[in-house]
């Protein structure tokens, strides 16, 4: 089977057993790989109602058909599990070379189930799979684990690990990849911690066969040429994702003070130019990507920041900056470094700290409750509370549960300040100024996710995405046409990019990874004859399978909602007065469900299931 090893590895940590299963071509063509494999495996093999942190939960690491190539983020993988944060389907993508490394060991996917009696790590090579004692690694930061395991193993082993936050089952703990790449969202690190699995090390030399390597090489050359010469990736290359900060502020979509505002007074201290002048120490790229958007930061004063962890990307800058009213680039980078060391998702951490600050400001949490004085924009307080969350110390214990559970526990009206959808903290794009993103947050299978559908800004010009029918411009603040746009781009940008896998950034118009080229890449690698229509249908199938998983767990229309704060008008900036009222969201949901072929309750109809070759739960 071209593009695949055709084998899946299953490790049962309770029994200390390892087995393999063959993958057939029907399975691979129907789900492609990555998130598609993960959701299907969880749907088929996990009983509903399983506690995400119990041994019964499964943690799937899945590569895709493009993973063996060095092609714009294709060497990454998806990590899929039932999320402890949302108790629904959860997935988090990991860039770097980990998908390719898994394939080099001979596996397209790895399923970890059960829970070890004491801390262990997994060592995978193309000759053996070993479950090894990790007693000496437990309690260590991601950087310490990286250093110990790098010394212990020969050169070239790639290392996935969790930090103390994963061990302490912080519900938004992440998984580190070589301490430079992070599968941040939805608490995959907590699932790993619950399994007593501290790390996975991988190295192999197995080749994955490619059906038409020459055609693939030509396509990659053509795309690389455009990236370097057509100007569409220039600012991403030069500023990294920091190119978003200034424009978001200008457009009034930059979450500020726990989404109470959408512009930040100290923007000049933290925008792309400020970060580049103050703390940038160069850039890094993913294998085979000529864009190189990953900024590296360094500082000696007032905080020492090592370039080892790369640097904060836009989402982190905004979450640990304006969201908590911190306008200090070095302090933001330090907060990012701590999250990386302890293994915390930076978005959820920032939004949770902002929630705690609002509780403190409004007198719902006192200094005594918090064990400290936590005020907006105070760098020392922010760094201290990050440590408390990671180790579940004092008030950090309740905040480690995420804003949904924390607010339910704290009560006294604090639920109104808990900015989440389905339990996942809202990322760094205020949806009032982008109506499509509002609907995408409400309907994404994993909760509020900024990478689940293309952003409205992209469609403000002509011919944005003709392959999907988007020729005429649509305003970002308009409702018209957004339900269908969200549906189509959820299937393409949200799902299929993570199934191939491929980085989403070069896929965003006007950049050169157009849908037809993705289909060509898939066919050149696998030897299939997939059409654009079939490709998009696979995306739709995977999305619906994720929805079915959630429906089986009890999710329905009532969870496709946004926090009440978004029905209040934005107070300033270029989105002044914009709202998303309940009525407007309900109207968009009705239309969206129609396009999806779902009932009024948000459940895929019999006809939809038949069309997508799916079965009802």
């Amino acid at each position: 089977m071209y593009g695949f090893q055709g084998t899946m590895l299953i490790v049962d940590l309770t029994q200390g057993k390892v087995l393999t299963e063959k993958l057939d071509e029907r399975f691979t063509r129907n789900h492609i790989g990555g998130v598609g494999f993960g959701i299907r495996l969880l749907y088929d093999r996990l009983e509903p109602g399983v506690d995400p942190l119990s041994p019964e939960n499964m943690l799937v690491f899945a590569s895709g058909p493009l993973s063996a190539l060095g092609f714009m983020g294709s060497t990454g993988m998806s990590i899929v599990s039932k999320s402890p944060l949302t108790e629904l389907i959860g997935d988090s993508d990991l860039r770097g070379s980990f998908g390719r490394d898994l394939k080099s060991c001979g596996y397209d996917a790895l399923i970890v189930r059960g829970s070890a009696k004491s801390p262990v790590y997994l060592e995978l090579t193309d000759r053996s799979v070993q479950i090894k004692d990790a007693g000496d690694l437990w309690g260590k930061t991601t950087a310490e684990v990286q250093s110990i395991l790098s010394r212990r193993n020969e050169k070239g082993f790639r290392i996935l690990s969790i930090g103390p936050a994963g061990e302490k089952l912080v519900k938004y703990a992440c998984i580190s990849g070589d301490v430079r790449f992070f599968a941040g969202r939805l608490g995959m690190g907590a699932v790993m911690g619950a399994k007593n699995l501290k790390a996975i090390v991988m190295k192999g030399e197995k080749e994955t066969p490619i059906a038409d390597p020459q055609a693939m090489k030509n396509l990659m050359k053509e795309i690389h040429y455009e990236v370097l010469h057509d100007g569409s990736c220039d600012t991403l290359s030069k500023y990294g994702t920091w190119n978003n900060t200034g424009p978001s502020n200008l457009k009034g979509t930059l979450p500020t003070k726990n989404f109470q505002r959408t512009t930040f007074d100290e923007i000049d201290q933290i925008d792309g130019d400020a970060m580049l002048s103050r703390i940038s120490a160069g850039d890094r790229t993913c294998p085979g990507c000529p864009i190189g958007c990953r900024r590296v930061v360094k500082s000696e004063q007032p905080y020492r920041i090592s370039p080892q962890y790369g640097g904060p990307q836009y989402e982190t800058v905004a979450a640990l900056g304006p969201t908590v009213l911190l306008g200090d680039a070095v302090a933001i980078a330090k907060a990012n470094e701590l999250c990386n060391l302890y293994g915390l998702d930076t978005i959820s951490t920032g939004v949770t700290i902002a929630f705690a600050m609002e509780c403190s400001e409004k007198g719902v949490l006192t200094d005594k409750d918090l064990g400290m004085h936590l005020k907006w924009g105070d760098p020392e307080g922010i760094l201290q509370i990050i440590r408390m969350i990671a180790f579940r110390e004092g008030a950090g214990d309740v905040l480690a549960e995420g804003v949904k559970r924390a607010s339910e526990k704290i009560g006294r009206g604090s639920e109104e300040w808990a900015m989440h959808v389905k339990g996942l903290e809202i990322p760094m794009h205020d949806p009032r100024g982008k109506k499509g993103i509002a609907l995408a947050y409400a309907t994404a299978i994993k909760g509020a996710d900024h990478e689940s559908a293309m952003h409205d800004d992209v469609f403000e010009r002509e011919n944005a995405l003709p392959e999907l029918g988007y020729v005429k411009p649509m305003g970002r603040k308009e409702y018209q046409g957004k339900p269908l746009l969200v549906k189509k781009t959820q299937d393409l940008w949200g799902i299929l990019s993570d199934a191939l896998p491929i980085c989403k950034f070069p896929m965003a118009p006007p950049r050169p990874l157009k849908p037809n080229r993705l289909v060509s890449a898939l066919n050149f690698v696998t030897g299939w004859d997939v059409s654009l229509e079939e490709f998009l249908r696979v995306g739709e199938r995977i999305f619906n399978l994720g929805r079915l998983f959630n429906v089986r767990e009890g999710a329905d229309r009532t969870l496709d909602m946004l926090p009440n704060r978004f029905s209040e008008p934005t107070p300033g900036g270029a989105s002044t007065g914009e709202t998303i009222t309940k009525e407007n969201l309900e109207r968009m949901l009705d239309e969206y469900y129609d396009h999806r072929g779902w009932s009024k309750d948000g459940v895929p109809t019999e006809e939809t299931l038949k069309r997508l070759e799916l079965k009802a739960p």
Partner: protein
Amino acid sequence: MAVTVRFVSVFRDLGVSRRLFVVEAETLEKTIDKLEVQIPGLKEKLVDSHGRLHPAYQVIHTKGNRQGLCSKLDCPIADGDEIVITPLISGG
């Protein structure tokens, strides 16, 4: 017909960050032409090979307290208007 122009998170290599430019022009195209004198190389980046505004950038046009987008080069600009040139936000 004085128009103020700012650049946000773009063209750092052209030395435009944090600077405010004032030019006399009636359309976006003329604004870019005038700016090109002060910022050599700007036009090549902002205007694509088809002679259109490059789709990787947005031109935010503020007129009094109204804000909109200039998406065509013949977009009229009036005395006292402000334009800001930014990269297109595409998530991430």
